[in-house]
């Protein structure tokens, strides 16, 4: 009876896993099929050819290389800046009796909970006004501004729970506020920073809406909107589109695999707080 139940559990879960991984594997396999093969047998058939030329086409002709560079140029500074600023705010708000600190914290969190739609038009207009429109700077700025509230809230919760004695000891040893922040608090906050870093990397890297709101030129597009453009460019070349999809997915998958534990604990961190 017990064996039967275990068997049923594994059969069911293997089928479910297949349902989740199957479509992904299908796309990976499709990215290595030749155009003639797909044209002759359809996207639903098993592969009868093998080529990697699709990746070259997506990479150079499709502009994925340029797009990946843009993505990194936006994502890396955005993650660093927003976590840095959020850590500063969280440190001051959690470790010092700043008047109105609770209101400030919740106001910042509220900003992150807003539906982005209410911000799209004003942000687009404001970036035009400042001459940032259609530059990666605009995208970095809005990603930092919009993400800050949530990161501050989570880091605040984390820093608040660190023991006060550590800070007192550092103060007695003559450390100033800046030193306490960089030498004591930041190292202690590393687990939370790693978790948020992994999460925010995928969020910013995967973003579509902000990119198509503040950018116009194809050459400036990060990889997510570029993938949509690729689809228009290679209308029926499903193998090239599939290769482009794989390329666009690789960086976040890599970050996930590298920071797996942090990533999952980051999601949980947001949930429990």
């Amino acid at each position, binding site marked *: 009876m017990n064996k039967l139940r275990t068997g049923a*559990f594994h059969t069911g879960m293997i089928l479910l*896993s297949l349902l*989740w*991984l199957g*479509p*992904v594997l*299908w*796309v990976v396999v499709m990215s290595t099929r030749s155009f003639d093969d797909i044209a002759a047998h*359809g996207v*639903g058939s098993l592969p009868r050819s093998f080529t990697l030329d699709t990746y070259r086409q997506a990479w150079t002709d499709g502009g994925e290389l340029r797009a990946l560079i843009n993505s990194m140029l936006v994502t890396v500074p955005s993650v660093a800046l927003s976590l840095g*600023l*959020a850590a500063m*705010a969280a440190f*001051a*708000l959690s470790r010092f*009796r*700043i*008047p109105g*600190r*609770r209101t400030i914290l*919740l106001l910042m969190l509220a*900003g992150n*909970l*807003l*539906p*982005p*739609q*209410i911000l*799209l*038009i*004003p942000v*687009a207009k*404001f970036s035009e006004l400042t001459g940032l429109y259609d530059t990666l700077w605009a995208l970095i*700025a809005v990603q*930092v*501004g*919009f993400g*800050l*509230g949530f990161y501050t809230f989570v880091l605040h919760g984390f820093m*608040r729970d660190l023991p*006060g004695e550590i800070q007192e000891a550092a103060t007695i040893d003559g450390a100033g*506020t800046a030193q306490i*922040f960089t030498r004591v608090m930041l190292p202690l906050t590393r687990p939370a920073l790693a978790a948020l870093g992994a999460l925010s990397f*995928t969020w910013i890297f*995967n*973003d579509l*809406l902000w990119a*198509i*709101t503040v950018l116009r030129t194809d050459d400036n597009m990060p990889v*997510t909107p570029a*993938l*949509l453009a690729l689809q228009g460019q290679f209308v029926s070349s*499903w193998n090239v589109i*599939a290769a482009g*999809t794989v390329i666009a997915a690789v960086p976040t998958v890599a970050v996930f695999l590298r920071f797996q534990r942090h*990533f*999952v604990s980051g*999601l*949980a961190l947001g*949930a429990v707080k």
Partner: protein
Amino acid sequence: MTATISTTSVIPTRRRRRSARLSPLLVAFVLVPFTVESIWVFWPALQGFWFSLTRWDGMSPPTFVGTDNYVELAGDATFRGALVNTVIWLVLFGGLSVLGGFGMALVLQKERRWVGFYRAALFTPVVFSLVVTALVWRVFYQPDGIADTLLRAVGLEHLIRPWLADPQTALYAVILPALWRQIGYVMVLFLAGLKAIDPALHEAARMDGANAWQRLRHVTIPQLKGVNAVVLSVIVIDSLRSFDIVWSLTKGGPYHSSELLSTYMYSTAFQSLRLGYASAIAVVIFVLALAVILGYLVRAFREEA
């Protein structure tokens, strides 16, 4: 911790004296991030409300028209369709991802052989962007794609249709990939919540003769109250924000059959260039999200207290 916090909020005069001693560095630590968020979030949000009271094409300056945009919204059939679709989206996408995610978390909560692999499999799509998810599923829905091949294999070829191009099926064909990606995410949230439940509670209930269903109903679910609240907020906010997956699969078409408020707002703003009208749609989205946002903030407020 609580003691130190409560002393500060008693007498305003003491507070003022304290704030006088704040170092300029600390003020900067708060002010710089707050200013950045003000420039890119708070100020634009206020402008958004103002724009919703104007007629504006983006070139000439906006003209104030009062509530005209809202009056027009009330009679706009496309808007009403998008509103209904957003509600359907909320119920189906939200409801099913909570049920699916919770179910999967229950099934996979116990550490046993292969469980790590199953969890990872369900979680994999979460790291993909919604555009990647959309392209993966486009292959599935393509004429002669996987969906059609599967239906043919089991002899149901009469059901075959252009899934994304048929107004009858487009919305549901878009919800399915969104669910596929969301279930793993919700599962992780519930797994974290389940892990935090004291096993002694289950043990005690079992001693008292509670069966599996009773333990779920009277121990697990009440213990998950905190996680439930978060999941609910996340789901509602995510549903109202949903844009990428619809935009990459159908752009709200055909004939607005898969239009959500978010996609209608975007195309009204940046394709029809009716910025005032689009702002009014954005305000409606905000109002719909407001209850959830407030609930979330109240919870956060209590926790900080």
